[in-house]
């Protein structure tokens, strides 16, 4: 009996954990496509959004994905990631919307933070909410996972946002069985997290099983870096290397994809997905703790940003 599950089948009429969470995610994506008028899929080029996009393809196959894909472009992206984004979108013939943080700054909607090497992490929220309003999106898929961060561990799969795009963590709708409540009034919207129940390891195992393509920065490579706040940052156009900061070349890879200004590399020789799975399984640091300056601001940095309407 071939169920199309290959070696992952755990017995008759049993599904492997990857196929179980895959089916759950596809079910969520289809519900949203059916019940909302204008959904959009937020795509950063990071591994989680790559998995989410792949699940969306599976959900509607052999049809095309029935909603556009949107990238919030901070202007501080890794060039490898932008190249990857354009290639993937062309391959699956999806329609891509790019919402630009630089344009929000130029038009006066956002103000660049003060100081050297300002992070645009927080500015993404304004650009995202403006784009949601402009295109009248009523549902936006995000690739956040509950194991990533403790505020996210409490967030619903369908996460309600009021007319200001705000999340109210103390007033969330209970979520039972797989009966999602996407009801909302005009101007409100729902963020949908179809891979809520996936862990970092699940994502890598799935990338392996499905043979998914990723931006090259996830794999070990040589790069000129310097150390700041305990993180290895890449030399690039948006970072000013201080006189006390020493440049050196190292063999590194990225565990997450964010802005060049706030995403740290980890020293690693993991050059293949198999290597990475071994590394992730043995790691004693969370991916965000290891590599994201944006989460280090305070104990509740993520919760505060999410309240404002962040991803």
């Amino acid at each position: 009996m071939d169920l199309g599950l290959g070696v992952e089948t755990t017995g008759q009429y049993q599904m492997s954990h990857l196929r179980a969470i895959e089916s759950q995610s596809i079910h969520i994506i289809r519900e949203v496509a059916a019940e909302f008028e204008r959904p959009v899929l937020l795509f950063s080029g990071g591994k989680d959004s790559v998995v989410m996009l792949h699940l969306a393809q599976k959900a509607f196959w052999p049809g095309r994905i029935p909603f556009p894909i949107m990238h919030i472009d901070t202007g501080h992206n890794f060039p490898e990631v932008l190249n990857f984004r354009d290639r993937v979108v062309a391959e699956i013939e999806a329609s891509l919307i790019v919402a630009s943080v630089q344009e929000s700054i130029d038009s006066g909607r956002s103000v660049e933070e003060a100081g050297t090497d300002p992070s645009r992490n927080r500015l993404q929220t304004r650009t995202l909410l403006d784009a949601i309003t402009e295109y009248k999106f009523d549902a936006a898929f995000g690739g956040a996972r509950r194991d990533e961060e403790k505020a996210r561990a409490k967030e619903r799969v369908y996460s309600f946002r009021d007319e200001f795009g705000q999340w109210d963590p103390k007033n969330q709708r209970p979520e039972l069985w797989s009966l999602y409540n996407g009801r909302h009034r005009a101007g409100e919207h729902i963020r949908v997290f179809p891979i809520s129940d996936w862990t970092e390891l699940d994502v890598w195992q799935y990338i392996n099983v499905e043979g998914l393509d990723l931006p090259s920065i996830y794999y070990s490579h040589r790069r000129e870096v310097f150390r700041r706040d305990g993180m290895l940052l890449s030399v690039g156009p948006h970072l000013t290397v201080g006189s006390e900061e020493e440049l050196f070349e190292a063999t590194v890879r990225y565990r997450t994809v964010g802005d060049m200004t706030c995403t740290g590399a980890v020293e690693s020789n993991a050059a293949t997905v198999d290597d990475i799975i071994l590394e992730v399984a043995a790691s004693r640091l969370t991916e965000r703790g290891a590599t994201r300056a944006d989460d280090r601001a305070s104990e509740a940095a993520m919760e505060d940003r999410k309240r404002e309407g962040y991803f």
Partner: protein
Amino acid sequence: MELLRFATAGSVDDGKSTLIGRLLYDSKAIFEDQLEAVERVSSQRGDDYTDLALLTDGLRAEREQGITIDVAYRYFATPARKFIIADTPGHVQYTRNMVTGNSTADLTMVLVDARKGIVEQTRRHAFLASLLRVPHLLVCVNKMDLVDYEQSVFDAIREEFTAFASRLDVADMTFVPISALKGDNVVQRSANMPWYEGASLLHHLETVYIASDRNLIDPRFPVQWVVRPQATSLPDYRGYAGRIDGGVFRPGDEVLVLPSGLTTTVAGIDSYDGPLEEAFAPMSVTLRLTDDIDVSRGDMICRPHNRPTVGQDLDAMVCWMTERPLQVGDMLALKHSTRWVKAVVRELHYRLDVNTLHRDEESTTLNLNDVGRVSLRVTQPLFYDSYRRNRQTGSFILATEDSNLTAGAGMLLGPD
């Protein structure tokens, strides 16, 4: 590797957080930066121990007030299984959160303090697990180290619990004597309790047989989405995408579509990874049918000789989850399977005391966190099974029409 979802609930002092912390730590699902953050906050607050509850208390208000407000989901894996824990708080919104956590659980873990024995909360907890028809109940008699690992203490609790549970509908019940703090019988069998011959807690979680918990008998396929590529390469393709909520489907099966009542056969089962020889619950697939009949979202594909109940008058156990009470005459939005309908509350038969199981037939409202038996009339026929037969096609949610809040959870009482 299989997936097991389990729910836990309990109060601050019954050792639940310690137990979860131990399971996560021993399976390396807690990371050093998380542990350091917890240690830092614990010492800032002046705790004399590391409060592992801080690992799951993710919201600022929870950390400030030292309470858990909401269901938290935690993840860990052993070489045998992947686990998703729905960790529900003991005090605030207890029933609402327990019902939510249990709705998707394969197993519920009840903690009993060996020194205190069975308390009101234990009974409530077991009742809600049985109401939500969680197939497996695991009773952990904790703090055995504080009663000198005495078998008689464990036996007495087991007997009392078993007697109480005979009034409930629990399919599988297992008892484990543990000390979460000392680690006895958590991961490994403990030398301190040689009289206990069962498996360790983790071993039970890894091996409890869950494959037969799904309904693989009654074929149910609610249509979520019609796939019509309208591409030149696939001019006439028409497939019905959905998740199988019961039974097994194979190409060639004779099927019946509701509400039309028309019969046809399954022409093929499609997936991105290729055609399938068969598909079973809870797989998400796309069915193609031999005949070109009208099928749309909200329709149900089943078998001619195995159909769900079709009806507009529903009888259900409802858990109420919002401040404004439920009353006879209320009009609500109801989601069942893949359709939203309107529902009016026809009758409130009784309110059930979740602690004593007493039925209050005089009650005229269901308040926040109440459970009761309710009759509803809906605007369109639903295709449903009793909740005891199928947790997917037997459940619904209720939402308020003005504020759109999820206000209630319903479990259908069917003909069987």
